[in-house]
């Protein structure tokens, strides 16, 4: 499936990446090459095959419902780029 620069721009927005106009053609071209590679998948019949998410088809283990963590805010927020009064800060969001 061929992709257009417009497609790439839409996917980039979905992924919250910005692509400069000057890079767009090259990004699209290289993206297209990868897509061509994976389009190979269309040549194999998988109609009867269960998708595989985990190589061993294991089952989920469960954890006991117990509070094991105590307040560690100072250490965990030490690498926060913007914080005040214990809050992470982002530009004003309007709902």
């Amino acid at each position, binding site marked *: 499936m061929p992709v257009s620069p417009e497609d790439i721009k839409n996917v980039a927005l979905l*992924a919250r990446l910005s692509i400069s106009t000057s890079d767009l053609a090259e990004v699209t071209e290289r993206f297209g090459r990868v897509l061509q*590679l994976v389009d190979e998948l269309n040549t194999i019949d998988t109609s009867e095959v269960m998708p595989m998410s985990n190589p061993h088809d294991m089952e989920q283990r469960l954890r006991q419902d117990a509070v094991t963590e105590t307040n560690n805010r100072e250490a965990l927020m030490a690498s926060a780029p913007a914080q005040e009064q214990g809050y992470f800060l982002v530009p004003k969001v309007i709902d």
Partner: protein
Amino acid sequence: MVDTKLLTTPVSQLRQLLQERDISSVELTQAYLNQIDAVNGALNAVITICREQALEEARVADAQLAKGQAKPLTGIPILHKDIFCTHGVRTTCGSRMLDQFIPAYDATVVSKLKAEGVVVLGKCNMDEFAMGSSNETSYFGSVKNPWNLDCVPGGSSGGSAAALAAGMAPLVTGTDTGGSIRQPASLCGITGLKPTYGRVSRLGIIAFASSLDQAGPMARTAEDCALALTVMAGVDAGDSTSADMPVPDFHAALNTDIEGLRIGLPREYFNDDLDDAVRNRVMTGLGELEKAGATLVDIDLPHSHYAIATYYVIAPAEASANLARYDGVRFGHRCDKPKDLVDLYLRSRSEGFGEEVQRRILVGTYALSAGFYDAYFNKAQQVRRIIAQDFHRAFEDVDVIAGPSAPGVAFPFGAKQQDPVAMYMEDIYTLAVNLAGLPGLSTPAGLIDGMPVGLQLIGKPFDEQTILNMAHRLQLDTDWHMAHPNLEISAS
């Protein structure tokens, strides 16, 4: 003064020297730190050095050794790939996004090794977020191959492989999502083991593709890998995908008798596309195993061809979600003066991630987006099962599957940078093993024009022992793993 021969001595011998008090951990640690100081400037394999902390850990180890309380790895210096979170020590994942990130926790692998009394010398350079096969995608610059400074060391655990080959540590950790331990091990002439998926906890390892990532040891010998895996492996309550399987003492159980073992050679690996020189070296290695009593049989892995397409849908798709947390809010790079929320996201992420990482996020996002999920992601997961079934069928007849670790020797910088697909082909013999979740090991198989090449051994699920045994036997019968680069590095 420490003999420089020490720098190429395997862990299995170093631990004896330590336990017999022929050398102290402090001396050993200092020797490796000196070597790092001497050669890292040229190689760029190590991006964080924990000098004081390492010497302190060495002193603690020496005290334990003196009291006779040593464990198998007590006092052994190691380097961690910079994808393992280390409490209080910068952990970058090779990215600008995390160039200031200091975790408040250790990865399970790190804490297990710590509990063993190892000495952490520092953190190794790597392809950004483990996405690459040449170490050229690191924000901290390329790593040079110690065998030829004009060539790549492979990737993504290229810093780890180069550091070990250059004698900066006797043991290093790596991770392998599509070949990231085995391919650089091959290109740097060392032994690297990717365990079965679920064998080693992923907790605290910065995620690339969760259903494929697996950590493992890289060392001079298979014996050292067995020592390290015994410590690294085991179920972890903090990782739901870690397997609740008994962990043998891989080292104690090493068995050099490979008589009667059947080694499958996939026709799809040994076809006309395989480079003749690589074939020659791999076949020579397999010939040694045959001499030792193993039987070589041709097998089919009929869907091998699809592995690369399958991988390059699943890995980017999982990565696109795993890397969504890097948004400039709680940690990591944040752009200067964001004007609104969307600006914060767009600029922080585009500035923080390099080109290859962004490409994979785009591909993964695309493969999951409305209208493409069935054609790409779901389809790839179906083909993944078919590929895994190929292996399981083959293992009904053979004990081990063998092939090359990489399509060639180390290549010059820039050779494959313009074409992502050419770079992806570097992992053509390794990534199906990740898709099937199997253990795989690369062991040196000699040199081609002075550059190392690896032989890959693939085992049944959770049967790391057999491939370790086989590699160990090969290393007893040959000296390819003892070849070291002739490092004549000027103090530049």
